[in-house]
């Protein structure tokens, strides 16, 4: 009953959201907004391994550029070191930062003529602040407009950094061609090194990243099954939903690639929610705890194996343990928790073994 009510609630929420989006309104409808805000309080999926890896790539790139700077004794090497650090970090959350850095490199190169024009011709001729402002207005206002639009934001930002950076590098007022050339070369060298090191060491494919997310999900399911106390509501769902959101574009990008073709991450979410329900009901059901404990052990082992070795169908022994747990619960005295645990077990059976036939006679016999 409780599950049916929950399904109807979710269906109504979806219809509200659909009408809201169709009417073109911004933000979320009031009731869903409070729900979403409450959900956002607990942490989402964090991948510390990838963060460490991105940091290591940045370290390698910075060491390379600084070694070059020290060995050649080139004064403008400082600008190169700064640029390489910035650009290794800028796109670090993407799977493959290289195309983003390449875009920045191309548009930094394109900004060089405009920067040269400003620095060498316009700025020396500007004798007061008003003249300076008027001289800078056309290009910066135009760039500002392009930064405001999402589709041109990346490119316009690269141009702005290029021109603005070149102008500010010479606040002492020495605008001569050699120092401009040196600083521009340093900038370009920094960005190019960031791109090359990223491509060599850091770029990962969508399939690799998708597998990593799936394994993190399975590891969390194993941990959920191995717990002895009930999990706090909301935390698991947040992390799993975040993972699903991260997985969808990557799975779409990989296409039908072998072992990733049949992955249904939402099914994993359902399994996790059912396991959490059973864990919550466990302390209140004393009689059938042994069957449920065996089931939890089986689930924990299965998901640990998945996290280690990759996708595999669940073993038939797990189906027997689920059926044993259901039969065991059927003998317990009727209570609200028992109904919830039974619903969760049925949901679990359906998610893990969607095609397994139900032997109703077995369950009815035990109940009688």
């Amino acid at each position: 009953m409780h599950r049916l009510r929950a399904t109807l609630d979710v269906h109504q929420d979806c219809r509200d959201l659909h009408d809201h989006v169709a009417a073109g309104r911004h933000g979320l409808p009031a009731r869903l907004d409070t729900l979403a805000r409450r959900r956002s309080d607990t942490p989402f999926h964090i991948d510390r391994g990838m963060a460490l890896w991105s940091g290591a790539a940045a370290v390698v790139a910075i060491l390379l550029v600084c070694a070059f700077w020290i060995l050649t004794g080139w004064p403008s090497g400082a600008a190169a070191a700064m640029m390489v650090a910035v650009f290794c970090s800028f796109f670090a959350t993407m799977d493959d930062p290289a195309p983003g850095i390449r875009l920045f490199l191309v548009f930094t190169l394109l900004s060089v003529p405009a920067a040269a024009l400003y620095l060498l011709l316009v700025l020396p001729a500007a004798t007061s602040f008003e003249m300076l402002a008027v001289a800078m207005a056309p290009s910066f206002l135009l760039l500002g407009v392009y930064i405001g639009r999402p589709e041109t934001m990346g490119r316009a930002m690269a141009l702005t950094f290029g021109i603005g950076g070149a102008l500010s590098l010479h606040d002492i007022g020495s605008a001569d061609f050699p120092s401009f050339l040196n600083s521009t070369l340093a900038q370009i060298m920094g960005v190019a090194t960031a791109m090359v090191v990223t491509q060599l060491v850091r770029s990962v494919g969508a399939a690799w990243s998708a597998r990593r997310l799936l394994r993190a999900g399975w590891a969390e399911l194993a941990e959920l099954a191995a717990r002895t106390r009930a999990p706090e509501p909301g935390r698991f769902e947040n992390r799993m939903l975040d993972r699903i959101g991260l997985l969808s574009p990557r799975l779409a990008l990989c296409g039908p690639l072998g072992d990733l073709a049949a992955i249904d991450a939402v099914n994993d979410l359902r399994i996790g929610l059912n396991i959490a329900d059973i864990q919550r009901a466990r302390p209140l059901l004393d009689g059938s705890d042994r069957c449920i404990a065996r089931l939890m052990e089986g689930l924990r082992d299965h998901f640990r194996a998945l996290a280690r070795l990759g996708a595999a169908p669940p073993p038939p022994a797990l189906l027997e343990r689920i059926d044993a747990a259901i039969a065991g619960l059927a003998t317990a005295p009727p209570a609200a928790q028992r109904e919830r645990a039974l619903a969760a077990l049925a949901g679990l059976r359906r998610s893990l073994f969607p095609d397994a036939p139900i032997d109703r006679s077995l369950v009815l016999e035990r109940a009688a």
Partner: protein
Amino acid sequence: MTAEVDIAGLLVPTLLLSMLAAWLLMLPLRRLLGRLGAYRLVWHPPLFNLALFVMLTAGLAALW
């Protein structure tokens, strides 16, 4: 090779010029290699490209 060359009053390091020339050579070379299918035989294409670039730079610097 001479360490620096005088272009219109600026002293430009010749290594920089060889790197620039090597990069310009790489652009059509990469497309050609891609067309010939060499990148399917290579383990790590960006590493291969970098190695090729370094070899071209060294070759051009030796010539200069």
